[in-house]
C-alpha cells in the first residue's frame, strides 16, 4: 500500500467520523442542483425511489478544458455563454451541413436531421467545467504498465484494424457501448435509462444497447472472482437515501480508458429533487492510475419512453465496413498489378 493511499484512507476516515455520510450526500445533492435538501419518495418496500425514465445527457465534458486550471465551476455568465453556444449549435445542426462536401468528415448521415445532435437533446443545467471533480479535473495519467498495455494493444492492431470483426471497436461489434460502463457516461444521443425497483433489487436499463444492470441490495457477496464480465458484477446497498453500487469482476477486454481487470467502480445515486438524480462515481485501478478519480453527473427526468436499440440485429455496418475494406485492398492490389 503506497503512502499516498494510506493518507487518503486516513483523511477519508477522519471525514467520515466528522460527518454522517447520509446527510453529507443529501447536502451534496442539494448543492449540485441548487435546490433545498430533499427527502425522496419511497417505494412500497421503504427504500428511496429512483424509478422512472431519465437522461444523463450533459453539455459538460468529462475532462476540464485546458487552461482552466483548478476552476471547477463557471460563473453564471460563463455558464450562460456555454448554453448560448449550445443553442447556436442546435440551429446549425438542424439547419444543414456542418462539414465540407467531398471530405471524409462529410461522409456521415446528418445527425441533426434525425434529431440526434447532442444539442437537440435536453441536458441538465450545470455550471461544472468538467464532470471530473477536484482541482485537476482530468483523468490521471496512465501508469507505465498501463501505457505499455495500451502500446502493445495498438501495435498488435496496427496494419490490421480492418482485418476482421475482432479488430474493430466494441461499439461497432455491438458488444458494449462507452456510455454503459459502469461508470455510465453521457453519450451523443439516446442517453436514456430506465430504473425499476423490486424488493431487494434496483434494475437500470440503458437504451444503448438495452443492457439491464440488475443490482441486488441484499448484502450478498460478489460473484466468484473467476467470473469476469464486460460490465463487471455489481452489488448495491443503501446509505441513508443514497444507493451505493460497488462493481468488480471486470473482464480485461472491457479496458475502460485503458484499465485492466483490476478496475473497481463505486457509484452513488442520490435523488436530489423530483426531477434529478445526483450520480457520482469513483474509478480506481492500481495497475492503471496512481490514484482514483471521481466525477459527478446530473441525471434528469426524461419524457421517455426508452425505445428498443437492437444493435446486433441491425448491424449492416460491420459487414459493410469489412466489405469496403476488402474492396479498398482489391483496388490497391489491382493498381499495383497494373503498374507491373
Amino acid at each position, binding site marked *: 500500500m503506497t503512502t499516498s493511499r494510506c493518507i487518503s484512507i486516513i483523511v477519508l476516515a477522519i471525514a467520515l467520523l466528522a460527518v454522517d455520510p447520509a446527510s453529507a450526500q443529501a447536502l451534496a445533492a442539494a448543492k449540485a442542483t441548487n435546490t433545498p435538501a430533499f427527502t425522496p419518495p419511497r417505494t412500497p418496500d421503504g427504500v428511496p425511489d429512483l424509478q422512472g425514465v431519465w437522461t444523463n445527457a450533459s*453539455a459538460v465534458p468529462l475532462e476540464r478544458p485546458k*487552461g482552466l486550471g483548478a476552476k471547477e465551476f463557471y460563473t453564471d455568465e*460563463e455558464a450562460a455563454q456555454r448554453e448560448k453556444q449550445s443553442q447556436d449549435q442546435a440551429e446549425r445542426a438542424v*439547419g*444543414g451541413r456542418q462539414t465540407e*462536401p467531398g471530405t471524409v468528415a462529410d461522409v*456521415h*448521415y446528418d445527425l441533426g436531421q434525425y*434529431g440526434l445532435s447532442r444539442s437537440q437533446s435536453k441536458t441538465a443545467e450545470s455550471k461544472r467545467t468538467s464532470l471530473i471533480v477536484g482541482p485537476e479535473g482530468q483523468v490521471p495519467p496512465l501508469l507505465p504498465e498501463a501505457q505499455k498495455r495500451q502500446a502493445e494493444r495498438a501495435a498488435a492492431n496496427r496494419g490490421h484494424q480492418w482485418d476482421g470483426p475482432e479488430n474493430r471497436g466494441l461499439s461497432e461489434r455491438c458488444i458494449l457501448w462507452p456510455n454503459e460502463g459502469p461508470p455510465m457516461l453521457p453519450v451523443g444521443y439516446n442517453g436514456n435509462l430506465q430504473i425499476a425497483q423490486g424488493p431487494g433489487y434496483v434494475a437500470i436499463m440503458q437504451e444503448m444497447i438495452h443492457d439491464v444492470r440488475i443490482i441486488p441490495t441484499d448484502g450478498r457477496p460478489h460473484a466468484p472472482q473467476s467470473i469476469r464480465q464486460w460490465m463487471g458484477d455489481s452489488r448495491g446497498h443503501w446509505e441513508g437515501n443514497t444507493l451505493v453500487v460497488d462493481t468488480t469482476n471486470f473482464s480485461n477486454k472491457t479496458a475502460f480508458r485503458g484499465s485492466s481487470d483490476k478496475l473497481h467502480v463505486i457509484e452513488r445515486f442520490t435523488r436530489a429533487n423530483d426531477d434529478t438524480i445526483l450520480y457520482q462515481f469513483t474509478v480506481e485501478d492500481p495497475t492503471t492510475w496512481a490514484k482514483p478519480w471521481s466525477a459527478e453527473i446530473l441525471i434528469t427526468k426524461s419524457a421517455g419512453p426508452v425505445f428498443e436499440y437492437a444493435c446486433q440485429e441491425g448491424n449492416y455496418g460491420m459487414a459493410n*465496413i469489412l466489405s469496403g475494406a476488402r474492396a479498398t485492398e482489391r483496388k490497391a492490389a489491382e493498381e499495383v498489378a497494373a503498374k507491373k
Partner: protein
Amino acid sequence: MIRIPMRRNLLALAAGACLVLTAAPVWAHHAFAQEFDEKKPITLKGTVTKWELINPHSWIHMDVKGADGKVINWMVEGGSPNNLFRLGFTKDALPPGTEIVVDGYQAKDGAFRAVGKDLTFPDGKRLFMGGSAPGSHGESEK
C-alpha cells in the same frame, strides 16, 4: 460591477464547447470512411420501397430509375430512429411510394448502397428535421 469573464476562460469555454457539441464519436467517422467513398458523391431521386426503422442505423430502401431506364433498388443509411420516435414520428411518416431525393456518398464496394447526407422531398422540404434548404433554420416539420 459587471464581471467580464477572463479571455482565457472564454477561449477554454469555446474550445470545450466545440469538443462537446460538434464531435460525433471519432470511430464513427473513421468507419464510415471505409464503407462509403468521399470521392463518389451521388444524388438519388426515387420512391421509397421500405423504411427499416432499426438500430444502430436506419435504412431507407428506394427504387431509382437510372438514365438507361433500369430501376435499381438502393439502400440509404441514416440515423437511429429512436429520437424521431420520441418526437412523434412513426413508421407511417415515410410510407412506401413516397418520392424522395437523397444526397450522399456511394459504397466503396460497388454495391447499390449509400449514406444519406441530405434527405428531402422533391419540393426541398427535409424528410424529418430541419428547414427547406441547407443552412436555413427551422423547427421540425413532420
